[in-house]
């Protein structure tokens, strides 16, 4: 049986989608029905979802998120790596 503190603890330690299926159902049920912590924890779960979507788009190098490195910096970097031989 989930109590508010258990939900707070679980969401503080894990992302809710990482929880085992059965635990996730119990947690979601509590959050849907609880008048005390429901609204707060729904907010937590929404932000976990936002970060998750962002992370995935980031890993896929989504063009909407691109911030190109200045060309001058790239040129400087190439200089730096050119003068640094690989370790034996």
């Amino acid at each position: 049986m989930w109590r508010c503190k258990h939900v707070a603890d679980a969401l503080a330690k894990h992302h809710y989608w990482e929880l085992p299926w059965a635990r996730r159902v119990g947690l979601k049920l509590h959050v849907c029905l609880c008048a005390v912590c429901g609204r707060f924890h729904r907010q937590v779960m929404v932000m976990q979802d936002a970060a998750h979507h962002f992370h995935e788009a980031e890993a896929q190098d989504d063009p909407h998120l691109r911030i190109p490195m200045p060309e001058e910096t790239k040129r400087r970097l190439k200089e730096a790596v050119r003068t640094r031989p690989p370790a034996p």
Partner: protein
Amino acid sequence: MTTESALNPERWIDEHADFLYRYALTRVRDHSLAEDMVQETFLAAIKSAARFKEGLSERAWLVGILKHKVVDHIRKAVRETVVDQTEVLELEKSKLFQWSGIPTMRPEKWHINPRRAFEQKEFLAVFQQCLMTLKPREHTAFTLRELEDQDTDTICKELGITPNHLWVMLHRARNALKTCLETKWINRNRTD
């Protein structure tokens, strides 16, 4: 790593520099620091090229090196700031917190449907912009917990704060993000 790749780090810059730069910049929010971190990543990669395992993603390997540098930097930066625990101590004494483990029952309602918005890549670009506007400590807490996927015990130990303090920082970060997301997203759709 193949000999050709090890001897051709300039290709890494063409293929991965933009990706690594955006990754670092989103987390440290300082252009020159992000540039330095990417440079250090490439130099560290050259140094340890022999340890790269054939068949693995080159980008994932470079991101792994950069991630360590970013997290190390954040830890150092946070340790150098003074922590004010007064507000957290007050929170710990509140009946609501003791009973339910949450600081407030009534966070503001969303004025948009966030889950529908997440499906749009443009919204994630707004999320990235909003992430850059958070206050330093809130940004740190949110980045380590939600983007770098560190557990709360590790974050608290590294930052020298209590779990309640982290909970408050995350709560503030979420509120600030929500306000920023709504404002920017609603304004953006108005101008479209």
